């Protein structure tokens, strides 16, 4: 298990991606899976920075990577505003260009790329988003 705390700032997204990529590499994931873990983490962290912390300075995101025998768990912990993933509208991927909305796309990508997504929010301990990616061949 490895944990690192990052300042909730878009300029740190690259370091966050590299942190989880290293864990995914060590867990034996292939390049395509590593890219998926990086992208899902980026989308999750971007949402936290934009919506939980409202792009205010000083917030933190703690990222923990846990390697399991069947895959990798990436856990993002923040102390910003909570949200209800159920209430985020699924983007209409078939909508015409003029009607395409970009909102909710990040979350949609996370659900598509990861095998399990769990969100817990507690006013005292903060918000915990757990992303789990199963290793191919173990399916």
């Amino acid at each position, binding site marked *: 298990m490895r944990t690192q705390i990052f300042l909730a700032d878009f300029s740190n997204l690259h370091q966050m991606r590299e942190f989880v990529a290293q864990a995914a590499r060590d867990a034996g994931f292939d390049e395509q899976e590593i890219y998926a873990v990086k992208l899902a983490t980026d989308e999750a962290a971007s949402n936290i920075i934009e919506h939980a912390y409202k792009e205010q300075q000083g917030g933190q995101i703690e990222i923990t990577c846990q390697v399991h025998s069947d895959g990798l768990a990436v856990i993002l912990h923040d102390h910003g505003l909570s949200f209800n993933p159920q209430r985020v509208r699924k983007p209409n991927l078939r909508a015409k*260009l003029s009607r395409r909305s970009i909102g909710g796309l990040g979350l949609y990508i996370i659900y598509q790329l990861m095998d399990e997504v769990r969100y817990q929010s507690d006013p005292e301990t903060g918000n915990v988003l757990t992303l789990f990616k199963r290793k191919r061949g173990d399916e």
Partner: protein
Amino acid sequence: MNITTKSLKHCELVSVTGRIDSATSPQLTQALDALTKNNKFKIVLDMSGVEYMSSAGLRTLLATQRQCRRYNRGEIVLAAVPQNIKDILELAGFTDIFKTYDDVISAVGSF
């Protein structure tokens, strides 16, 4: 991220290298807005040097496509899209909205 823009006879060629995420996408938005504000609506985006793109990049592309396609005055097409990014375009349902070409020459030739 590095962006270069070149005016060709029938279109604008924008080459991007590096990573497009929430930190860098405003820079790409700015470069593309500079073109559309100058009434340049036929754009080829050379993505051969893009290592990574998140939904922040998709948002930029979508906004630019809206500008370009309005009144049928043009469009932005994508050239040499790396496979992992192509997968995400497909996942996000963007393949209907953006024409993609294997290389810059055929993308430029489409205008």
